């Protein structure tokens, strides 16, 4: 990835006098990330955890852990939150999504936190279907085709997903201290695809109301709105970049590849969900292949 990252020594998170220009909060209102301007660049603050200074062009990032925070936690924040934001500042397209390689085709799952993106990707990867990313879905156009670029070979799972999916052949990365989501490195138990794959299907994950796997097509305008909602974007006030981003997403939305996918959130149902996805993705790509 084309971002130069350095981790600096710990320092207290000093008060910032200006108001943040943007912030992310959890549904319960707890602050997760604050976005400040700092000179021409940016300061991303994860309260009580770390600061990240991002250069104006998104090409370099420095991480400053809060005193007492472990290095894996900072690295984890960097890889999953800061890196996608920095890439977005370089004009790259990064979405909140996971992806797997089904028969050489890239199949992506987009959804908000907690919708099951990582669980689904891990469920495929532990059964031998290789994953490309578990979050931070990086897309690039190559010779007129939209490609999924593989991210770092690890998957993070919440504790209940771990119990259902993990077996002893997996290597666990050092636990991070701010979340019950542990990180698993790819290895014998979790298959990773390290080559770019053409984007063939995008499934937006529903809320889990369906009693059985259900897949419905989305109209291009619906897909565009969903793509906007699921974008990583560092500077939501940079109008030129925002316009370009909107254009990129519009081009993407015109592909006939978008579906809404819902299924019961029950680990025992996962084999049937995988089966339904594989069948649907292969059928669809055969019928649209030219």
């Amino acid at each position, binding site marked *: 990835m084309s971002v130069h990252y350095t981790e600096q020594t710990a320092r207290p998170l000093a008060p910032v006098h200006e108001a943040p220009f943007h912030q992310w909060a959890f549904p319960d209102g707890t602050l997760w990330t604050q976005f400040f301007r700092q000179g021409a660049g940016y300061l991303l603050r994860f309260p009580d955890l770390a600061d990240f200074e991002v250069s104006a062009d998104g090409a370099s990032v420095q991480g400053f852990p809060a005193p007492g925070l472990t290095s894996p936690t900072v690295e984890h924040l960097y890889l999953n939150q800061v890196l996608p934001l920095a890439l977005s500042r370089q004009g790259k397209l990064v979405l909140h999504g996971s992806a797997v390689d089904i028969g050489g085709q890239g199949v992506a799952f987009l959804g908000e936190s907690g919708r099951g993106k990582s669980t689904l990707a891990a469920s495929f990867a532990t059964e031998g279907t290789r994953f490309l990313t578990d979050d931070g879905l990086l897309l690039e156009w190559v010779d007129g085709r939209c490609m999924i670029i593989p991210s770092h070979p690890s998957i993070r799972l919440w504790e209940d997903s771990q119990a259902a999916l993990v077996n002893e052949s997996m290597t666990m990365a050092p636990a991070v201290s701010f979340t019950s989501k542990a990180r698993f490195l790819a290895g014998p138990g979790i298959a990773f695809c390290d080559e770019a794959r053409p984007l063939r299907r995008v499934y937006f994950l529903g809320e889990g109301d369906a009693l059985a796997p259900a897949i419905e097509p989305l*109209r*291009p*305008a619906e897909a*565009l*709105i969903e793509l*906007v909602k699921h974008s990583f974007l560092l500077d939501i006030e940079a*109008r030129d970049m925002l316009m370009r981003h*909107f254009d990129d997403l*519009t081009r993407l*939305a015109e592909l006939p590849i978008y579906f809404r996918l819902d299924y019961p959130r029950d680990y025992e149902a996962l084999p049937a969900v995988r089966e339904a996805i594989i069948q649907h993705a292969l059928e669809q790509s055969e019928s649209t292949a030219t």
Partner: protein
Amino acid sequence: MNLSDKVSIPTQVMARTVGDETVILDLASGTYYGLDPVGARMWQLMVEGQTLAAICDTLLDEYEVTREALEGDILRLTEELRAKGLVSLA
């Protein structure tokens, strides 16, 4: 507001057409709106700077509809867009 009005698109509003629909993004509020194919066509003519009356004339040639119904529709859509800050009267 009446049929001799024209509208303009505020700088914080961006719109893109996908398929036969239009998605409007309001940067100020971060909200999104969709226009169906007929609304998308009306929007396209509004962006070109035509008066609402001229838009009606154009659309009468394109759709099976009475002038009265069309005028009502276009005034309603324009009012709705204006209320959401997506257009302003030029």
